């Protein structure tokens, strides 16, 4: 089984647009094909990541590029949909079934809290156990209790990510906020505040992935997918929605740690070999917990890591150079592939003021409902 490479990336900005999802998705797909210098008719299989769109979204979006008879399937794995779709494309290429595949993530979502009927049982919705930030907030509250993590440390994550987004033309906000503004923004679910959470929105991202043989034929220098994995949370390892209870006796390893270990092993690398990270900052606390789960610091020391400055651009291990989901928003199907587009551009050295100098290895991570987690490691 040979390696799989990314030879083209395309992105529709994340935000709110007066456009159909078919337009948003097909624009990103067309940009990825153009970046790879290939035509739609060269694509042998296509995978569409989406969560909030109707059935056959992939067909409807990609037919705008022209008629086709290839396999086009929709892939859904909550916030990890993009990772699950990319994994399917990698497997299709590694199996020898195809040499060139298109992976696209597209979403168009209403404003405000996500429709709880999508991810919770009816009784949970009736009782109000169904407002997405509440689960993340309960984790934050316990982390503060156990390790002394502070509201200021949580706010610093939001400060860093909003600041990074100023240089990202694909982000929804592209606006810096002061620590005072963040800490004065309204509480949504204590201790998490409005400027510390991401918004559901619209957007798309697309990749052209190929076999090594195809890459040589195209005469391209691609970015290698060194490892990719997707998993759901083990029993009682993660109280993300829609969990109704947790064990008090079983303490399983969480989905990020499980997925990261699989990817590090497949890629033959350790966390110390990775130059930059894009991670699931659905809320600012989540990023602190992920520093620990990905192995950037010991358990309980995530708050101290944000204080150290090492996760800023220019630090030892920059995280969310793009501004993260806090500033870009989270068009769910597109979010992981948006991370991968950012990381490919980082490895190509195309990121201007948010460039991580000399980046050679990069990691993208998403985590959501059901403890769905996907991690992709890229290498130049």
């Amino acid at each position, binding site marked *: 089984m040979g390696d799989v490479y990314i030879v083209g990336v395309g992105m529709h900005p994340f935000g709110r647009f007066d456009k159909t999802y078919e337009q948003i998705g097909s624009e990103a797909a067309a940009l990825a094909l153009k970046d790879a210098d290939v035509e739609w008719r060269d694509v042998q299989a296509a995978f569409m990541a989406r969560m909030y769109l109707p059935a056959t979204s992939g067909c409807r979006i990609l037919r705008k590029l022209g008629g086709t008879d290839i396999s086009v399937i929709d892939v859904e794995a909550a916030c990890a949909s993009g990772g699950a779709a990319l994994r399917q494309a990698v497997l299709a290429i590694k199996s020898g079934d195809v040499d060139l595949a298109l992976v696209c993530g597209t979403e168009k979502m209403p404003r*405000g*809290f*996500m*429709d*709880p*009927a999508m991810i919770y*049982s*009816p*009784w*949970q*919705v*009736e*009782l*109000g*156990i*169904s*407002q997405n*930030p*509440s689960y993340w*907030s*309960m*984790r934050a*509250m*316990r982390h503060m*209790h156990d390790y002394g993590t502070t509201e200021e440390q949580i706010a610093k994550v939001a400060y860093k990510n909003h600041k990074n987004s100023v240089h990202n033309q694909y982000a929804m906000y592209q606006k810096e906020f002061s620590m005072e503004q963040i800490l004065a923004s*309204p*509480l*949504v*679910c*204590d*201790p*998490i505040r409005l400027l510390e959470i991401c918004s559901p929105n619209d957007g798309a991202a697309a990749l052209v992935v190929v076999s090594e043989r195809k890459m040589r034929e195209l005469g391209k220098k691609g970015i290698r997918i060194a490892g990719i994995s997707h998993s759901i949370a083990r*029993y*009682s390892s993660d*109280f993300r929605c829609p*969990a*109704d*209870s*947790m*064990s*008090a*006796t*079983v303490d399983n390893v969480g989905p990020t740690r499980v997925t990261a270990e699989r990817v590090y092993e497949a890629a033959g690398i350790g966390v110390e070999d990775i130059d930059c990270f894009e991670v699931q900052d659905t809320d600012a606390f989540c990023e602190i917990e992920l520093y620990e789960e990905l192995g950037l610091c010991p358990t309980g020391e995530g708050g101290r890591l944000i204080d150290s400055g090492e996760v800023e651009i220019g630090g030892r291990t920059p995280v969310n150079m793009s501004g993260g989901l806090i500033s870009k928003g989270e068009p769910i199907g597109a979010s992981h592939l948006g991370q991968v587009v950012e990381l490919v551009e980082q490895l190509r050295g195309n990121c201007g003021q948010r460039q991580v100098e000399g980046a050679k290895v990069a990691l993208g991570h998403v985590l959501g409902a059901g403890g769905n987690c996907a991690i992709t490691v890229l290498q130049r």
Partner: protein
Amino acid sequence: MKRRIPIKDGLLTGPLDQLDSVHLSGSRCGSCGETSLGSNLACPNCGGENLAHVALGDEGTLYTYTIVRHRPPGNYQGPADFKPFGLGLVELDGIIRVMAPLRLEIDDLRIGMPLKFIPYVLRTNENDEEVVAFTYDSVGE
């Protein structure tokens, strides 16, 4: 008296017309000993199918919580006049932590505090049945 039903099948045990005798219901696995919430096909820990029905304890401690500051979306059946409320994981008998709305004042919430189980009639449904739900409140009067 109207007929009563639990908000979710298998979640509550005891006669619903005597709320003092109603408890949360669990399933204890004969293979691994793990207790899970409600009625299940298989043990969520080990997959074992030899499950015994158990009543969970009515007293617990608050493992963690948040305060829901805005009206939850969708078919939320709480008071029409929304008031921020606590939502927490309540640990029962050292075996399970249950996600539940909390009835006590939000300013009184503290990790580790003792709480007690409160079943109550949430609403009357379209079949004129009373739907029984649950919450937790502080132990003191």
